[in-house]
């Protein structure tokens, strides 16, 4: 069952957590299964030496990447979403086709960056997904800026970004949240507290390990939720987005979770992560939990779930094939597009 979000600071009009319909729950299930399958496949490709660079997985954090993305409006005129590298699922939900994710990891021309950037540095104007940079927390002020633009134009759009516990130590986290609060923009901040930043445990990152408390220092109402419970994340997000969309200012959601593997595929995490804790959190696997809820509390047919799993398997297979068949961009493209051409964007004016 979904644990209700613990409210820390009064939200203007306290609405009861919206009931999540079975259809939505199944939708969340589909996206989580797709995310898990995509990541598993990518990790295998990495291990086979078929992906350049390294590989970062969000396994065990899919409840967050999915729960925060599903409540948003996607597509042109939709909401801005700038997800953290653990949040592959967010990209999928918000519109990026699976094959382009694989093309991205492979550096192919079909990647959203035409191979100019790698891993989850994915984006495109058609999806209102800016292309993440490596520098942690940098996307926070950008997200505030997008929210400001919506407010200036009187549009009922919101801007959302997610980030890890490590990112909260950076100045841009601070400056971004403070400006968001003062300018009362429709932004939602999702902190994914998985208790590690590379090899650094949260105890060495901050003395205030409940990240939602940091938001209170900016006057931003904040809640903490069980980040391994997709229904909890989804509900908290629906509420936060509704409020932001209604012009009541920014919101902050801390999702408590645990990093289930190393920082990246090359990281020998066994040397520093306590195995007991990993085992413990493994029992809280968000996908298992959602499956259980669907079966036990919502009496969803196993065949229906299996149907989704099969559909996903096909989708991923097809996506990998397509990405593998794709070529690299012509090297000449390396020279292009440093600057946008004159007149860029004039159509939308």
């Amino acid at each position: 069952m979904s644990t209700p979000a613990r409210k820390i600071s009064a939200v203007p009009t306290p609405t009861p957590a919206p009931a999540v319909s079975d259809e939505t729950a199944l939708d969340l299930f589909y996206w989580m299964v797709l995310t898990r399958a995509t990541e598993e496949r990518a990790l295998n490709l990495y291990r086979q030496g078929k992906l350049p660079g390294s590989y970062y997985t969000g396994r065990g954090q899919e409840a967050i990447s999915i729960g925060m993305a599903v409540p948003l409006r996607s597509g042109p005129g939709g909401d801005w979403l700038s997800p953290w590298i653990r949040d592959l699922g967010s990209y999928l939900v918000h519109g990026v086709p699976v094959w382009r994710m694989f093309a991205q990891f492979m550096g192919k021309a079909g990647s959203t960056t035409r191979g100019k950037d790698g891993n989850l540095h994915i984006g495109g104007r058609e999806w209102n997904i800016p292309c993440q940079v490596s520098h942690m927390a940098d996307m926070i002020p950008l997200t505030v800026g997008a929210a400001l633009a919506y407010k200036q134009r009187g549009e009922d759009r919101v801007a959302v970004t997610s980030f890890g516990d490590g990112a909260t130590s950076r100045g841009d986290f601070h400056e971004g949240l403070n400006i968001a609060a003062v300018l009362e923009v429709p932004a939602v901040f999702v902190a994914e507290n998985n208790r590690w930043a590379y090899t650094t445990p949260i105890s060495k990152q901050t003395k205030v390990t409940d990240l939602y408390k940091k938001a209170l220092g900016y006057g931003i109402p904040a809640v903490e939720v069980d980040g391994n419970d997709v229904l909890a994340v989804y509900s908290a997000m629906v509420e936060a987005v509704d409020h932001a969309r209604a012009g009541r200012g920014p919101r902050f959601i801390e999702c408590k979770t645990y990093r289930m593997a190393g920082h990246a595929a090359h990281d020998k995490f066994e040397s520093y992560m306590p195995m007991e804790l990993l085992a413990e959190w493994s029992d809280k696997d968000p996908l298992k939990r959602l499956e259980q809820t669907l079966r036990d509390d919502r009496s969803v047919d196993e065949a229906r779930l299996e149907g989704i799993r099969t559909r996903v398997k096909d989708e991923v297979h097809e996506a990998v094939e397509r990405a593998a068949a794709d070529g690299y961009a012509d090297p000449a493209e390396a020279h292009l597009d440093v600057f946008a051409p004159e007149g860029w964007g004039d159509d939308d004016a």
Partner: protein
Amino acid sequence: MTMPELTYLEAIRAAMHDEMEIDERVFVMGEDVGRQGGAFGATKELQQRFGELRSIDTPVAESGIVGVAVGAAMAGQRPIAEMQFADFVSCAFDQLITCAAKMHYRIGWAVPMVVRCPNGGGVGGGPYHSENVEAWFHHHAGLKIVCPATATDAYGLLRSAIRDPNPVVFCEHKFLYRRVKEEVTTGAHDGVLVPLGKAAVLREGADLSIITYASTVQLSLAVADTLAAEGVAVEVIDLRCLVPFDRDAVLSSVRKTGKALIVHEDNLTGGFGGEVAAVIAQDAFEHLDAPVRRVAALDTPIPFAPPLEREYLPLEEDILAAARDLAAY
């Protein structure tokens, strides 16, 4: 269309005003820019005219300000972020080079924004209120850099910068703010536009090229006058923009004169002059009749006390001495 006599500072204000009149996406933001109109008055009365959502007072947070501008630009606005002094753009360096500069290259999503930097020394500001920041950025592909020397250019280049779909670092020299003045064709619809990336040949001459920009343009013209009286014809080129760099204007001048003197107020090492010299030494080599010379400030922080700051800055006499040497070479 009107042609009031405007100071460089008034021209900057007029450019923002006129763009804001015709393009709702344009807005200003920064510390004290709103009700107060900024530390120098560049945004004076824009809030009264266009409202609080288009002239935004922000907390003291340069990185946040620039980052917010990047996001707003991507979401379809045309932000103009003011640094209270250019020096403080150091705090926004990461946002500029990491987010603003590289977004379009990676996903073809443009970042049309301007960061206005009250730049430069000669005003007794000391090490932290006098920096010339233009050469902090030309290394970083994806940023345009504008350095006007006249009121007309301040107006026309700023309007072009606001319209440009790319992030522009607009270095307005605060020594010139109230010291430079001329009739400027303003007006929301028919004000003068000066394109980015075109140098101006301010004085033609066959003997020697001075390549310069911003505060040292007037000094170079004075030197050209002095040398004209001595029978030396100096060509004076005002770059106006460092990025895009008007390579052709520089090369064709130097190919004609055979002698190049590069002058800027910024300190020598790592200043833009090195880049200009390198381009000349590679692509106009066969036309060179003399060493490529640079006149610039000392490679030190900018000292506060008037006699020390004077020692630090390149003065008219320094330019004159170098130009004379070169002419005589």
